[in-house]
């Protein structure tokens, strides 16, 4: 999976699950302040990312440090690398 795939698929999650316009989906966007997600949405974000990428991140402490869309791109890429080791 390329980094472009990660970005495209993550953006699809935000567009489909949270109805966020594509023009707002930039790496520096804060998922709380800029994209309007709240605590309930984070639960759904985890479920949607697990489904989209076939990963298990529900109990991963690193999820708590995510603030921006770019953080998610990086986190998913890292998880993919760890799974492929």
């Amino acid at each position, binding site marked *: 999976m390329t980094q472009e795939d990660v970005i495209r698929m993550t953006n699809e999650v935000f567009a489909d699950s*949270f*109805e966020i316009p594509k023009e707002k989906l930039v790496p520096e966007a804060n998922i709380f302040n800029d994209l*309007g997600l*709240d605590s*309930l*949405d984070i*639960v*759904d974000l985890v*479920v949607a990312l*697990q*489904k989209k990428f076939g990963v298990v991140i*529900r109990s991963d402490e690193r999820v708590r440090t995510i603030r921006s869309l770019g953080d998610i791109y990086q986190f998913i890429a890292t998880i993919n690398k760890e799974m492929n080791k």
Partner: protein
Amino acid sequence: MSFRKVVITGLGAISPLGNSVGELISGLEGQKSAVECIAEWENYKGMRSMVAAPVRLENEKLIPRHNRRSMGRLSIFATQAAQEAIKDALLSSEDLTSGKLGCIISSTMGSAESIAEAFEIMGPGKDLSLLPSTKFFQCISHSAAMNVAQYLGITGVVMAPCSACASALQSIGLGYDLIRLGRQDLTICGGAEGLHPSVVGSFDILYATSSNYNNTPKNTPRPFDVKRDGLVCGEGSGILVLEEYEHARKRGAKIYAEIIGYNTCGNGDHVSESNRDAIISCIRQSIASSGISAQDIDYINAHATATIQGDKEEAFAIREIFGGDTPVSSLKGYMGHTLGASGAIELIASLIMMQKSRIYPTLNLQEPDKDCQGINHVMKLMDKSINILLKNCFAFGGINATLICKKCLA
């Protein structure tokens, strides 16, 4: 102890006949049936009834995602109906957030569609981690009340006296009590229901649904008719704004009617069979609470769902109390039984009948069954002044509710 006077100042309806009070009334005026064949229910083994009265869900995305995410189908209906009722009553945002306005809306259960989805998601792998965070909020029993209150910013009493097909009328009765006792000045009250095969199936396995008209859906349900064969499920929401009379008068609100009587009771006898004695008791106590006599009532909007047993019991009770003079009609033939919403949608229609001095007849009633005779069935449009009307609702669990409204000549 003196009670405060309670009036109705706003109406909103999402119904199988259309998504506004205007469309509801237009459908009734046109003697239109919203019942249709639901072919995909043939996929359910054992389902006999293939007819229903669905709502055309539209404009749901006008509700912001943050509110909509916790709403199942019935909560969306309730929110849309509440918006219409608030607009009709000309309530301000200050009214909604004052703490003096309550929100009492209930349904048979939380969204059946959402409950089914939840089990489909976690069922196969018994995996709870796949459940969306807001699924529970769509499924809980007070989903409609909670969602409408959250959406509108209501900080007064929020309650949901869920009682299946008496849900809406019990909600209106509770809202009435809260105002007349001085606990609230305003209440947004009513019921909501979402159509789903699991709901229809619950009646179908009891042989309470209509199944002889699957190819001619407009001919069913047939309340009080000799050829009736059961109820047809519908869906939607009816919401009324109730208001303390002086509060309404001071702000120059339009007043549809005054609520003058209400009663609800159990039959203590059977969970699914209507009981004529309990219905008689419920109606008599509601009349007693209103300080009028049975002869003062100009129109009865019956519960009559077109089940063999229920219609017979209600007809007996009406005959016993009112004799054969008071006009009676059921609206189930137009839009099926909207279950938890029926008490509110049909009360709204009855209030418009009062306003127009016109009674809509029982659609599909062609020949009253001998068990249902001896009461004044309205079988064609009747122009008649209605000063006082009575609305009945009966529910699984042996629950009865009756509400009485009087034209308010403020």
